[in-house]
Structure formats: structure tokens, C-alpha cells
């Protein structure tokens, strides 16, 4: 039997092999945890961004709806104003045409312009001048024309001319 004279070393579980193993697995686990943390962080950021996008979309939709409402209103305003401007211009032309229609020998004392009718009061030297120079053009414009004459002391005639446009013909024109 042989005896050793050296002092026995203290035995430890953390041998070189174990250290190597711990280092290897430690590095692996660290990388896995790092990857997992990265993914969890990214998922969190994605969720956050998704919520932001939902809010942004909501805001944008609201903005778009507001803008669409404004566009609709402006279009309505534009249409109405164009209609009003056209109506005023047509009215101006109609009144201008009416006064141009009256010959210089006939004097108007009053003109009532309604939507479907025109009533003229005035004086004329004789019925023929009225009939040929005013009644004829009025008849070509209006569907129905009625005239009444009242003799004046000076030999002239006062007249009342009532002229109507039938509603059907206005509707036909508008079609």
C-alpha cells in the first residue's frame, strides 16, 4: 500500500467543466431572455402604436367629416347664390325689356310685376296705338292678356292691361 504525503485538496462542485457549462448555458439563457425581452418590448410598442393609429384614424375621420360638411355647405351656398344672382339678373333684363317694350307715345303710370302676371296702368292717345304697339308684343309673351279702356276728358284713353303666364308654361320652361 502506498501513502501520499501531500495534503489533500479541497474538493469543489464547481469544476472547470461545470464552469464551462454554466458559462455556455448562461450565455444562451441571457440571449434567450434578451430576445424575449426585445419581443415583449416590441409587442408593447406595437400595441401602443396601434392605439395611436386608432386615435389618429378617429381624428382624421372626424376632420374629414367636418371638411365634407363644410364642402357640402359651400356647394349649397354656391348653388343658392348662383340661383339668386341669376334670378336678379333675369329680373333686371325682364324689367329692362318691359320698359323697352312700351312705345314712347304710351305713358305708363304704374306697373305691377308679379311672378306669373304683369299689370300695366297708363294712358294712350288711342286704342289702335295701344293694340298694335303694346298689346301685340304683350300677347306674344303672355298666355292671357286682358285690356280695359277708360276715356279721358282730353280724348286720350286710360288703360289697364292685365297679363298672365300660365303655370304650366313656366313649368315647361323650367324642365
Amino acid at each position: 500500500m502506498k501513502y501520499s504525503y501531500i495534503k489533500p485538496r479541497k474538493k469543489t462542485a464547481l469544476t472547470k467543466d461545470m464552469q464551462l457549462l454554466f458559462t455556455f448555458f448562461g450565455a444562451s439563457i441571457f440571449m434567450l431572455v434578451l430576445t424575449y425581452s426585445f419581443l415583449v418590448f416590441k409587442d408593447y410598442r406595437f400595441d401602443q402604436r396601434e392605439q395611436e393609429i386608432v386615435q389618429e384614424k378617429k381624428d382624421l375621420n372626424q376632420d374629414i367629416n367636418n371638411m365634407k360638411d363644410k364642402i357640402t355647405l359651400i356647394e349649397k351656398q354656391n348653388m343658392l347664390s348662383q340661383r339668386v344672382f341669376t334670378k336678379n339678373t333675369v329680373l333686371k333684363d325682364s324689367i329692362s325689356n318691359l320698359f323697352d317694350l312700351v312705345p314712347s307715345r304710351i305713358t305708363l303710370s304704374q306697373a305691377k310685376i308679379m311672378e306669373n302676371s304683369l299689370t300695366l296702368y297708363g294712358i294712350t292717345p288711342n286704342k289702335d296705338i295701344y293694340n298694335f304697339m303694346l298689346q301685340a308684343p304683350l300677347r306674344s309673351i303672355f298666355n292671357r292678356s286682358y285690356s280695359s279702356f277708360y276715356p279721358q276728358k282730353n280724348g286720350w284713353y286710360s288703360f289697364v292691361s292685365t297679363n298672365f303666364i300660365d303655370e304650366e308654361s313656366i313649368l315647361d320652361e323650367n324642365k
Partner: protein
Amino acid sequence: MKISRQNIYLLALSVFLLIFVLIFSFMLLIPTGKEYRIKRAELKKENKKLRQLSDFANDTSTILQDLQNENRHIITAFSTPFIADRFQKQHRKFFSSLKLSKISKQENDDVFSVYEVNTTSEISSPKSFYKFLDAVNKSDWIIAINFPIIFKRDSELIHSSFTMKVYNNDKSKKEEKPKEDSNTTK
């Protein structure tokens, strides 16, 4: 074959760590990775939709701005409340006398409120009235000259009366009705 205790420790630890790695990977890492990929794809889609919506909003904004620039006068006119004094100041030059009375609110249509103004005036010739009609289309309000229009000769002047419809944006809930007004200028 004799396996030393040291090797048994080594083997056990290796197996334990391997199992840990596998469980960690399959239970946490891979599902999270899948979720990450799905969310990334979803986010890409959502970003694309957001960009499209943003482009659409920009286009709509451009259209709105263009419309606002083109129709500035009309927009301002619809939002300006009718003031009889101001109207008279602006348009009295066309008349020998101009009187506005009874500003009454008519039934609203769906968007606009309509006020009716009775007007009596005196003009020296119909031309003044034509000029007035031209000026009304360029005035600060949207005004439609309405029937009945009556012209009556009164010596050298023509006495005229007509109604005007003034159109405003409908703010009936916020706004008070305009006060009745009656002013004469000569």
C-alpha cells in the same frame, strides 16, 4: 463502466438547463415571436390604411381650401348678418329715397335662414334700378329681389316697392332674431 459523481452532476445540470431552454423557448419565446410577427404585419396594414386616410384628408383639405378661396365672397356674405343701416348706406346712391321695413324671419330651409325685407324707394329712372340690381349681386349679403315689384309714376320720380329675401347661414339656435328695423334716408 464506472461514472464518476462529478460527471453525473455535469450530465444532470446539462439536462436540466437544456430542458429549461426548451421550455422557455416553446412556452414563451416562440409564441411571443409569433405574436410579434402578426402584430408587425397588422401594424404595417394599419399604417398603410392610416397613410391612405391621411392622403385622403389632405386631398379633401385641398379641395376645401380651393373652394373657400374661390367662394370667399359668398361664404362671407352668408355669414354676415343683415344690417339695414349698412345696406342703406351702400345702396342709397341708386335711389332718391330708400326705406327698409319689417325684417321678418321666414321659414328656414334645411341649411339657410331667410329674412324678408320690405323695401320702398324712389328712383329718377329705371336705369338706377338696373344699377341697383347689379350692385345687389356684389353686395355684402346674398339678396334675392322678390315679387311683387311695383313701379308707380309720381310726377318726375318713380315710386318703387319690392321685397328682398336675405339668405344667411342658419344659426337659429345660437342667434337672436334680428330686431325690426325701419329707417328712412333721403
